[in-house]
């Protein structure tokens, strides 16, 4: 029972932190203004320009190395999508 209570406490804390983050997400002022993101929107700033090529190279590496995963970021260079 103490473990259940502790789990509920953690869940409650996570909810409060999550709600805080979500509400601050609506009010936070971006320190890089949208009109200052022309360089970040340049195709050379994209994390991954060629998905097929990256997937192919990852496949080659993962079949020869013990490591795997966490090989790329989500989102574009301008944070647009």
């Amino acid at each position, binding site marked *: 029972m103490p473990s259940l209570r502790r789990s509920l406490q953690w869940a409650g804390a996570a909810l409060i932190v999550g709600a805080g983050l979500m509400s*601050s*997400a609506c009010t*936070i*002022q*971006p*320190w*890089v203004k*949208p*009109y*200052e*993101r022309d*360089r*970040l*929107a*340049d*195709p*050379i*700033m994209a*994390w991954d*320009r*060629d*998905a*097929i*090529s990256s997937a*192919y*190279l990852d496949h*080659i*590496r993962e*079949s*020869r*190395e*013990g*490591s*795997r*995963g*966490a*090989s*790329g*970021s*989500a*989102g*574009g*260079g*301008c*944070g*647009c*999508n």
Partner: protein
Amino acid sequence: MQRIAGRGAVIFAALLLVRATCADVLPDDRADLFYSKYSGGGMDITGESVLVRKKITENLAVEVNYFIDKVSGASIDVLSQASQIKDERKQKSGTVEYVHDKTTYTASFINSVERDYKSDTASFSLKQDMFGDLTTLSLAFSNTNDTVGENNGTAFVPVVTWLGHAESRSYDVDVSQILTKNFIAGLNFNLITDQGYLANPYRSVRYVDPSNAKGYSLASQVYPDTRTSTAIQVEGKYYLPYRAAITGSYRYFRDTWAIVGSTYELDYTHPINNIWILEGRFRYYKQNHANFYSDLFDYASEYRFEGRDQDLAAQDNYTIGAKATYAFLPNGWKIFKRATITFDVSRVAFHYLDFRDIKYYGVANGYQPGDEPLYQFNATVYQIYMSMFF
């Protein structure tokens, strides 16, 4: 006044442009044709792929991809015990992507088939822009079911014995963060759990055997039935004072087989006149060996789990690569708005620190078991692909 009005109009137009580009929209429709060739370590692998991506509505897109790998030859440890192989892998995938407000939902399915291996993966991810679009958070989950077999026949008359199943679950949390107007950073975390038949049936362990003329004998590998791995990568991309970008990343990996790996990458991207994008990259990777790996066991069945797979050995490798992308059809052609063609070549040097070359060195050449030279080889990877946007 006219000047102020003009400046205001420019700012207004810029804001409209930024609003248009920073609204959550799906990428352009595209079709890609891809060809690749890998040569190294006794293996030749060619890959051919076609990908088509199409928006059904402004919020919904579908993507289909077909990939075929053709393998000839075999790696050194397979060659040490068997004849050459010829095989091919056909992979089909379908993806549906849906955008609502600042969130992108993606569901995909991948089916991969070889004569002696079948794999199905279902995955789901969501991506959320937040904090004034400075932060992109992505969460992903995928589930993979594999069926593992062994071909006991020949390349032309296969006799496949199915050995078992494996299930894998992967969880990803990725954050991309704009830090300045020139700098973007990424933090990627991945956790994978595997359960089932995880060994490679074509590779064997070897143990000391004085009754064998070679001084050793081979036996089947026995892997643990479970594996859990975690990887975390940090990366940064910086727009230089002139129009070029530099990217650096570091990845730390560890798993329950005691493999610890580190990957370092550096990439430089330089466009020329909006026609060419040139890219140079360097990558260095190192790892220690798995806790049940040994190049030579003292006797048969010395331990409960035993492996001598190349990718479990202590090793390092470095890669030097170059890529050139040429943009053409700037004014479009028929349904296509623009197109690019890309050439990519990589040279990889593999060094093994406790995996020995038993194919070409042995007692006949004066090398006792365990004294053979360490194995190393170079590989070259070529890629050429054309992307057409419509």
